[in-house]
């Protein structure tokens, strides 16, 4: 590179950095992003739906191969669930009677805002509801099956960015559904872990992790994921388990923001 060319390159680089710094310092970058999200929303929505349909088609072809095996597996699970259901109905009846007797009201339902996913980048998703719809930073986002996706991280006029539970900065308290074993769910990039569980407690494979409301970040009882593998070591006082989140971006189009 000639000196004049070097100078030109340096000038471009410095002015670009200054311009970008100014955009971030004045919060104008948020306005720019909001504008482009609004402008590209129809195309983005179409692309998201097309991606979902096309990948769904390929997934279906792959799925067909293991359909027979899956079917018999599901039949046995169904039998098990039916017998559990009978037991639960009895418990429900008993519970209702007890509630009446003690005068306990049912927990107030969540106020939900229906939203659609239109984009994703790393461990963040873009949804089509924003400040105008009453979305606030920090609100939890769940699926129709009450599986936790994450929390609102950034709010624009008509859009919001949701930090998924797999994100490095996502940390919240949770517990194992079958027992009162408490721990912390931590995102580690593309994977999610249930950690800070004392070695004396037993974590089993396929245990279901749900949110606990100790830290006040998420309401209690939301589904988080299922234990995939457990890591134990004699040299550390805590154990951790890798979990498979129930929330899967490929199978989700509609989400709910809990207000």
């Amino acid at each position: 590179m000639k000196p004049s060319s070097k100078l030109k390159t340096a000038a471009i680089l410095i002015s670009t950095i200054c311009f970008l710094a100014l955009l971030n310092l004045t919060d104008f970058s948020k306005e720019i992003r909001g504008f482009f999200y609004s402008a590209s929303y129809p195309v983005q929505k179409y692309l998201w739906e097309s991606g979902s349909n096309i990948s769904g088609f390929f997934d279906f072809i792959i799925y067909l191969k293991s359909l027979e095996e899956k079917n018999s597996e599901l039949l046995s699970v169904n039998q098990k669930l039916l017998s559990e259901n009978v037991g639960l109905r009895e418990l429900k009846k008993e519970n209702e009677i007890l509630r009446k007797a003690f005068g306990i009201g049912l927990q107030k339902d969540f106020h939900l805002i229906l939203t659609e996913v239109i984009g994703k980048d790393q461990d963040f998703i873009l949804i089509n509801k924003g400040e105008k719809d009453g979305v606030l930073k920090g609100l939890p986002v769940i699926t129709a099956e009450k599986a936790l996706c994450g929390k609102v991280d950034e709010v624009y006029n008509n859009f919001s960015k949701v930090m998924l539970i797999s994100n490095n900065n996502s940390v919240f308290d949770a517990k194992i559904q079958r027992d009162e074993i408490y721990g912390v769910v931590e995102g580690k990039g593309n994977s999610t872990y249930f950690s800070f569980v004392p070695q004396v407690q037993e974590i089993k494979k396929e245990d279901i992790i749900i949110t606990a409301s100790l830290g006040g970040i998420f309401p209690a009882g939301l589904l988080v994921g299922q234990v995939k593998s457990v890591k134990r070591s004699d040299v550390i006082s805590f154990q951790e388990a890798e979990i498979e989140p129930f929330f899967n971006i490929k199978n989700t189009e509609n989400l709910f923001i809990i207000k």
Partner: protein
Amino acid sequence: MIKKLSILAIFFYAFSLFQSSFLIYFSILGAVPNFILIFVIILSFFENRRENIGIIAAILAGLSLDIFSSLVFGVNTVALILTVLFIKKARCYLKEINILSFFFIFIFSAFIFNFLLAVFDFILNLSFNLTNVILIEVVYDLILGIVGYIFFKKWNSFLKI
């Protein structure tokens, strides 16, 4: 020149949209190909050393990526500019342009870009995202990059601005 830059800007914007909304469904082990990075690397690799089209393309491409990125606005732009500067510097030491030199420059450039993103994210958000997914993404990009190299070699008249 303005016409070609406008075409480039629209192209990058469309691909950012495509990457963040469509290609997400076709990730391999969590890695999604970065067509914009591939295109900028190829463009900088083939451009005339005296030209600055690579840097201008890096700015346009970076801004497009920044719009749909979860990182601080501008991080992709700066990372892409520095990647292009690396390619320009590396080109000075190349005796000839062939697929082997492209192969090595591509790998280094893709790693530099992803490494810079991870470093900037760590500095600005205290979040460290340098995972093994980057390795898969580089391989994914490299395969598409080689296809792009073959295609570009036959069609590089576009760069003669």
